């Protein structure tokens, strides 16, 4: 039962929570605001908060100067491509581990997890050299492959924790009623598994979109997704605050929106089911 809370106490907490919440969010808010300023206003002192001439010019400049859309598209292809490929490989695996667990299922799961513990820098050189020899450096294909393998353990684990919650009795009941394997999968398992698959997709697109080790080390001008493109602003272009802000706003907006939908899955996916 919720305790009755005095109004005064509630007001106090409302004020504190909003002040802290806005403070934490402020860098993002400031970036969004700055993206609509002119370069002059962006570094004006005192800084203008809302009362400046709003302009969209930075957004068009960023696109014209650096073919922003190419990098945006790279991000889309790499994050979606690696996640979908990962799902195709992981769904059967997670499925069979959840519904036909064997003696070694737990060991396999733990081993998969352990591959995730490998620090990327430990295999940077071989991957770099193999990619160089295979002509995969600075290609979207190469990054899709690496990110698929990077995130495969998380995908398998997330799916496994979701599938495990589908009650097996339902399957038995369906079998009693004469459902074959095909009907079982199409009419019973798939509808029950879709929410879990969707949240796995969501979280892994986010992780792949923001991945910034392999994307920075394996790409140059052609296949660079937004993480690597924004890094090119480190100097001296980063001093053009308004343009940096416009490029950043476009890079984080889609994932910010997706992210807010995936709050719950985030906990589950990133703790491998250890906290629910």
């Amino acid at each position, binding site marked *: 039962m*919720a305790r009755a809370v005095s109004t005064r106490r509630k007001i106090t907490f409302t004020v504190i929570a909003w002040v802290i919440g806005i403070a934490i969010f402020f860098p*993002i808010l400031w970036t969004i605001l700055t993206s609509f300023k002119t370069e002059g206003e962006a570094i004006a*002192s005192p800084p203008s908060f809302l009362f400046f001439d709003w302009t969209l010019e930075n957004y068009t400049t960023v696109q014209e100067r650096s073919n922003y859309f190419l990098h945006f598209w790279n991000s889309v292809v790499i994050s979606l491509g690696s996640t979908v490929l990962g799902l195709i490989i992981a769904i059967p695996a997670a499925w069979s581990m959840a519904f036909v667990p064997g003696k070694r299922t737990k060991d396999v799961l733990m081993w998969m997890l*352990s591959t995730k513990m*490998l620090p990327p820098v430990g295999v*940077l050189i071989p991957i770099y050299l193999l990619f160089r020899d295979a002509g995969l450096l600075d290609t979207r294909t190469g990054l899709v492959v690496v990110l698929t393998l990077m995130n495969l353990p998380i995908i398998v684990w997330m799916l496994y924790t979701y599938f495990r919650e589908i009650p097996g009795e339902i399957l038995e009941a369906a079998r009693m009623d004469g459902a074959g394997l095909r009907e079982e999968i199409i009419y019973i398992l798939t509808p029950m598994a879709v929410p879990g698959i969707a949240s796995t997709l969501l979280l892994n697109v986010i992780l792949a979109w923001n991945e910034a080790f392999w994307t920075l080390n394996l790409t140059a001008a052609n296949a660079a997704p937004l993480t690597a493109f924004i*890094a090119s602003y480190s100097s001296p272009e980063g001093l053009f605050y308004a343009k940096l802000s416009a490029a950043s706003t476009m890079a984080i907006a889609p994932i910010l929106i997706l992210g*807010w939908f995936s709050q719950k899955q985030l906990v589950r996916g990133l703790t491998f089911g250890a906290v629910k």
Partner: protein
Amino acid sequence: MATEHSRATARLMISPAVLLLLAWMIVPLALTLYFSFLRYNLLMPGMEEWAGFLNYKFFLTDPAFFSAVWKTLELVGGVLIITVVGGILLALLLDQQFWGQGAVRILVIAPFFVMPTVSALVWKNMFMNPVNGLFAYLAKVFGLPPFDFLAQAPMLSIIMIVAWEWLPFATLILLTALQSLDSEQLEAAEMDGASFISRFFYIVLPHLSRAITVVILIQTIFLLSTFAEILVTTNGGPGTATTNLTYLVYVQSLLQFDVGGGSAGGVVAIILANIVAIFLMRMIGKNLDA
């Protein structure tokens, strides 16, 4: 009631994932290990020769290595302290009743979704820049001299940036754990006259201990590999003030083209990460039985 037939199917369904991960793990690892025993520089192709433990000797006696290990620990430790303490406080706050809970939660979680290169550059330029940054402006308002964060306190600045990225993660997990706490237990303690402080230390904190451990272990795994934030803000400098182990190996292999030395560094990084990983795996493994 799995039949022989369904077991065979199950094995078939798992094998692509297992084989791919096995290849992903074994091939590069074996190569790293092999390279680490070679004298191999990309600038001198065809000159590779067996070097025994020479690379390890150079790497482990290089003062840069000890500095990098120390910087890595500083970074991981600093971020962990800020995010765990801050996360507990924030989770306690968000667990209270107030208007706009959902909205504040969204504001607090947002930094987690910002890509590392964006958050590092935004902090570096728009906040920490000693001339045009917001902090410089604030300092001026209060009559203080401007502070060049990334030059005068480089590691602390990077810790701040990375902590800002990870605070939402800690908060979210601790909040989830907090919400599973039985409120009747707290009410009973309150009625018996337990103060907020003692309720926190005797009931809330023990309840959170498991979630705190998970936060620490998972963050450590990711924080050991911090790279992008360092690359776009300080490039490991000034000097080697912000060169962590990941960055050191990157410099050695992709900037100095020293494949042998870089590989030896990579192997060391793997060993260090594994020490943490063992503890994490035990925790998660236990949960799997439950």
